[in-house]
């Protein structure tokens, strides 16, 4: 054990003496560990954000969307928002069916009105959603300024904005009372929502970017009724979610002629859809990172072989003063392991830096998990030991007199 500590110290000395070469050796390990830790961190962060997004919708809110979206298949079929709406399979009648279903307290239709609102700037980044005054009852979200349109406002041309929409349309945070033109009609801003929790890689519309207008006002703007994006239905309590979901499905199947061209999603399901897509993505990156770790291991082997050749004389001296083959073997394996541990350590630091930068500059909020750090380190150490043993064995088997002669 004492000899091992000595080996560790001499390994550090060697690494310090050949800084450039050691860094290049560690590079593969650094890249591998950094990418694994970062990607898994981002993945965990996204899952966390997604569940927060589900939470704000409320745990007892069912989402009814056009087009069939099976919970299990969601991961495989990367359905985009466009195809949901384009199918246009939900109608005003369905809104009525959902509203009268068992245990449904409130139901709110959300439909997309095509067009570009023109305020201080023209706004193309988000949709205009026509809805009823019941929306705040379904969303567990408070207003930052003003209020949502009430029942008696529905015929008036008022609008409520998400925060991003407010900023981009008017270049200011509190555009209450300001107006914008949409399809030739003036709308007055009556309220601005607080920041919604929005998850990246989500299929759902980011409500921060949305403009909400009353659906009666919307129906005056367009000749046909606008396509429904979704119907939100709030259920009495969480326990009746399943029965209500089946009831709604049964009712809608009847009106749709037994054709399942819609989907009724429980909160957990809409989460599953997004996480499944993201998991595939994560697995891919982790695979690439594993290859990078393997290549890093080969790099370690290469450098250790050079190191063994270069230090043959030293090996000879050590053997001459009584080092056994096994002790030389241990020394070189410990050196390889030290290289990979250092590489893993630097990789973790790099990934922490990347995480912080992502946190600041993007909407991602990576979660730093110590489990994955330990896992990545263990894998790195193992690759170091495995790839370091071959050069170490070559060093250990060398005849002492041969080793001493090489300079």
């Amino acid at each position, binding site marked *: 054990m*004492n*000899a091992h*500590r*000595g080996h560790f110290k001499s390994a550090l*000395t*060697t690494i310090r*003496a050949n800084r450039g070469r050691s860094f290049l050796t560690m590079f593969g390990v650094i890249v591998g560990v950094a990418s694994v830790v970062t990607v898994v961190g981002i993945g965990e962060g996204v899952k966390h954000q997604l569940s927060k997004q589900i939470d704000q919708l409320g745990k007892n809110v069912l989402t009814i969307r056009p087009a069939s979206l099976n919970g299990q298949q969601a991961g495989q079929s990367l359905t985009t928002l466009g195809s949901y709406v384009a199918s246009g399979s939900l109608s005003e009648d369905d809104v009525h069916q959902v509203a009268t279903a068992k245990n449904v307290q409130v139901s709110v239709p959300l439909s997309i009105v095509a067009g570009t609102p023109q305020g201080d700037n023209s706004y193309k980044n988000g949709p205009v959603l026509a809805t009823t005054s019941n929306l705040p009852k379904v969303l567990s979200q408070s207003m930052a300024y003003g209020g949502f349109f009430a029942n008696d406002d529905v015929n008036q041309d008022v609008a409520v904005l998400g925060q991003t929409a407010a900023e981009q349309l008017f270049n200011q945070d509190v555009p209450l009372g300001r107006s914008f033109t949409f399809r030739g009609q003036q709308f007055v801003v009556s309220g601005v929502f607080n920041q919604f929790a929005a998850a990246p890689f989500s299929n759902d519309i980011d409500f921060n970017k949305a403009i909400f207008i009353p659906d009666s006002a919307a129906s005056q703007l367009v000749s046909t009724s606008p396509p429904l994006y979704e119907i939100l239905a709030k259920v009495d309590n969480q326990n009746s979610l399943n029965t209500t979901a089946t009831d709604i499905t049964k009712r809608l199947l009847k009106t749709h002629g037994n054709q399942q061209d819609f989907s009724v999603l429980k909160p957990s399901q809409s989460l599953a859809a997004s996480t499944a897509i993201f998991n595939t993505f994560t697995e891919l990156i982790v695979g690439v990172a594993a290859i990078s770790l393997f290549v890093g291991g080969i790099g370690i082997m290469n450098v250790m072989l050079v190191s063994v050749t270069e230090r043959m*004389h*030293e090996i*000879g*001296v*050590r*053997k*001459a*003063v*009584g*080092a*056994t*083959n*096994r*002790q030389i073997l241990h020394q070189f394996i410990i050196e390889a392991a030290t290289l990979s541990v250092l590489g893993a350590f630097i990789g973790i630091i790099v990934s922490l830096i990347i995480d912080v930068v992502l946190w600041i500059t993007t909407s991602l909020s990576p979660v730093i998990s110590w489990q994955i750090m330990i896992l990545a380190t263990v894998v790195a150490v193992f690759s170091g030991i495995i790839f370091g043993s071959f050069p170490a064995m070559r060093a250990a088997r060398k005849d*002492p*007199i041969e080793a*001493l*002669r090489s300079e």
Partner: protein
Amino acid sequence: MPVIELQDVSRLYGFGDATTLALDEVNLTIEKGEFVAVMGPSGCGKSTLMNIIGLLDHPSHGSYKLYDRYVDRLRPSQAAKARRDTIGFIFQSFNLLPKLTVLENVALPLVYKGIKPVKRLKLASNMLERVGMQNREYFFPSQLSGGQVQCAAIARALVNDPNLLIADEPTGNLDSAGSRLVMELMSELHKMGNTIIFVTHNPELTRYATRVVYMRDGTIVHDEKKSLGEVAQTARRMMYTLPVASEEDDLAGVSTLMKALPAKPTKSRQKAAKKTTTKGTKTTRRKARR
């Protein structure tokens, strides 16, 4: 009880047509407490003999008994342990590790014995004090003079209390002051009861030895016991005929000395000659190794 008993020890290098004979059936017995100087021209097999005695190399034929134990067929790990515990080896080129301090270098054999860091540094420090280097502990070998480096190397050889010291031209890379320093130290160690074998080209240094062995072409041609403090008889014969100033002169001197020696083609020599001719091998001898 003899410390070293070599019986018909031969060492061959290479194989087939390129075989060279470095040692040719050498017989040598060294008793405890002897201070043996080995002399001979370059390439005569002195270093090979030292390596075999020091268990760095093993004989191709013949037997070697060290402290009454056969060691010519030891496994590598056993040989390593024997080197560590019973033999101190001193090289012409010092062979200290340049990246370690003098103290760490001296403690190196103790690392492989598994002694705790604090204890081994203490032991190494004591040993450095014995060779008069206590104020150079934290120097690197490159910061010391040749004589001092060799003293540190001797301290390293002694740190395991080996009793047997083997020195392959310990003064070969040193100036006369360094040589004197090293030889005085070795002579002191001899007085303390250590058995010492050293190779030298300098006849003057036989003054320190109790026995002088002359080698040529892989065999021992002359073996002379003498009293301490005197230059060996055979060596003296040419000492005054040639001024000894540099190592090259030393080499020339030894060659002259060898010519002065009575040529005695022994039986084994003839046998060896036959052996080499029947195999059709070249008669080139192994080149001198530093």
